[in-house]
């Protein structure tokens, strides 16, 4: 395969990888503060795209504003979901909460179908124009946006985590929730904020890729599984690992299309998920913390 073809696949891999990274970050943030895998994360991705399209089409607002509103609305849904479906389960039983998020995923996607309709919806590209060419490969302008926005999100998140009181509270909860409560941290608020952040990140991913692939009420499940695989690959609980996992998964998929066959790309991602779960469940980029039975 020629150099420019290979580059094309790398670009495509990093594009998808950024999306997976954002979704995977969402999983990690919620997991860190609650120990729960939020299976509704994929739906936040879906809602980001859907809300943005809806705001854009219905109110005719300029695209950046529509995108921002899309993210805010998705974050709002995340908060409402946490308050109504997660918080009431006071004993924090992980199995129960996981099941609740599964139910939430089904509910959110079905409500989306009723509210937004069953058809695919499109968002115009953030900047119009032909693709940028780099050594014979094409980079769509939207891809540059995706990379840019992902970078901004990661930098912002890093700043929140390390330089703000909220971030400190979140890190404390991730280490030990009971201890955090003992030192006076409002763990319930941390959980709510985590959901809001996870939803915002997922929503950002969804809306930034909507111009390329269109969006519909049922796109959440597929991307959710990929983002989830990325989180496992990198290692749950660590934001850097989550992003690394996402990019890596995107590249693995792309290379499998290039060297194997396009039909098996999903199988490869899922195979990677299972392999990591069985062989190194704590992920590639975190230190071993999971105990075996």
């Amino acid at each position, binding site marked *: *395969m*020629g150099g420019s*073809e290979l580059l*094309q*696949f790398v670009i*495509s891999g990093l594009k998808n990888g950024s999306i997976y990274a954002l979704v995977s970050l969402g999983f990690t943030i919620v997991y860190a503060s609650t120990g729960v895998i939020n299976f509704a994360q994929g739906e936040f991705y879906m809602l980001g795209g859907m809300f943005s399209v809806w705001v854009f089409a219905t109110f005719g607002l300029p695209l950046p504003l529509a995108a921002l509103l899309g993210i805010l609305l998705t974050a709002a849904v995340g908060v409402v979901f946490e308050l109504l479906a997660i918080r009431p389960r006071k004993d924090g039983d992980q199995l129960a909460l996981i099941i609740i998020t599964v139910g939430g995923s089904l509910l959110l996607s079905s409500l989306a179908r009723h509210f937004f309709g*069953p*058809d*695919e919806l499109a968002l115009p590209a953030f900047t119009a124009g*032909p*693709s940028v*060419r780099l050594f014979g490969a*094409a980079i*769509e302008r939207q891809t540059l946006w995706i990379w840019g926005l992902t970078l901004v999100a990661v930098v912002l998140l890093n700043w929140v985590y390390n330089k703000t009181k909220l971030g400190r509270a979140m890190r404390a909860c991730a280490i030990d929730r009971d201890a955090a409560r003992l030192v006076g941290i409002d763990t319930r608020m941390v959980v709510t904020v985590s959901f809001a952040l996870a939803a915002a990140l997922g929503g950002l991913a969804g809306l930034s890729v909507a111009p*390329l*692939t*269109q969006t519909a009420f049922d*796109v959440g499940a597929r991307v959710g599984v990929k983002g989830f695989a990325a989180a496992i690959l990198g290692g749950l609980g660590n934001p850097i690992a989550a992003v690394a996992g996402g990019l890596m998964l995107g590249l693995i998929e*792309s290379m499998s*299309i*290039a060297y194997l066959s*396009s*039909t098996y*790309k999903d199988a490869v991602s899922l195979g990677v998920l299972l392999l990591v779960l069985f062989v190194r469940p704590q992920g590639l980029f975190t230190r071993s913390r999971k105990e075996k039975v």
Partner: protein
Amino acid sequence: MIRRMRMLFAIACVIALLVTGCASDDSGSDTGSSTSGEAYRIGAVLSLSGTYAGLGAPERNAIELEVARINDEGGVHGRPIEVLFEDDGTDEAKAQAAVTSLLEKEDVIAIIGATGTGQSMAVRADVERASIPQVSMAGGSVITDDFNDWVFQTPWSNRVVVPFTLDYLKEQGVESIALISDSGGYGKDGRQVTLDFVDEYGIEIVADETFNRGDADMTAQLTKIKSAEPDVVFMWSAGSEAATILKNWIDLWGAGPLRFKSGGNANQSAAGAPLIIGAPGNARVELAEGAGDAAEGFEFAAGKILLLEAYGDCVGERGVASDFIDRYTAEYGEGPDIFAGHAYDAINIVVEAMRRLPEDFTSSDLRDEIENTADLVGVGGTFTYAADDHNGLSEEDIVMYRISDGVWTLVEGD
């Protein structure tokens, strides 16, 4: 106490059983149903949602239009006809459930459907078990190649479309093609039939990629195709993915329009991208709308209903088509496409067969009479079925189109 509760529950079950048993309808036996009661009931399984929703909607429009017309003109044997619609969501399992409901619950005498090849194949076991004739609106040749006494087809089979298209490509000097096809029934069928015929035309297949229904990006497959340097890309996709393929392809090459390569020169610096040629499944307005500029120059074979001028001198067919076009446009505000045409043909084939029979007939009789259809002028062409031909059409019934400035135009001189 607990025992009493359990007892009550058990007794409730028995009562429920008796109640539902007595209240339930007496349905006919499993050997097909005879007509009885007022309206003739026909079942229709269409893709009203999912990736073939754009095909199912005009089909439904056409059927409703015709049913209204037929009933206004007095119905069949003085009795109205009623078509019960079910949505299969472009999904084989749902199609199967829909047919079960139509056959078991609604006791229909015929099934029109489905929209897609895969879904049409999915229901044939039920249709056969129930001895009910099925008239499919999907173009996969497997529907009639894998011959079943109970299944008929109204579109031009891929076995007719492929030689027509390859012939045209050969005339344009094409020597190599790349295939990109949908892994579902229609795409799989089109691909297989193409592979069956290429040797006859001396055309080489240099790449063969597939994608799944619902995939959002085909750049990877198209990148591999681009490296294989085909003269033309033959696309088999009837769903919304077709627009994505066109957009991805143009993007890889930088700009359109789609056109035939000249001289087979791999390092062409002239603007444009190697032609993508499609099939009747692409005769949809949504394709031009979804792909926008990327559809410029796209070509495909399809029936004559898209442009009245395609009928040329065939007065009979032209008359039927223009009447249908006028009525459809008056009712729905836009012209009918080939899918509306397939549906028009399906309902009329069934109804005409019903007219030729006496008032009370079994579904077996209906099947036999559908098979006797001869020289019935429809929108897709003139239909003549036989005991070994449940397709009824030929290459005479299709022409080559090109998208120019977002609209369909006839390709001259074919």
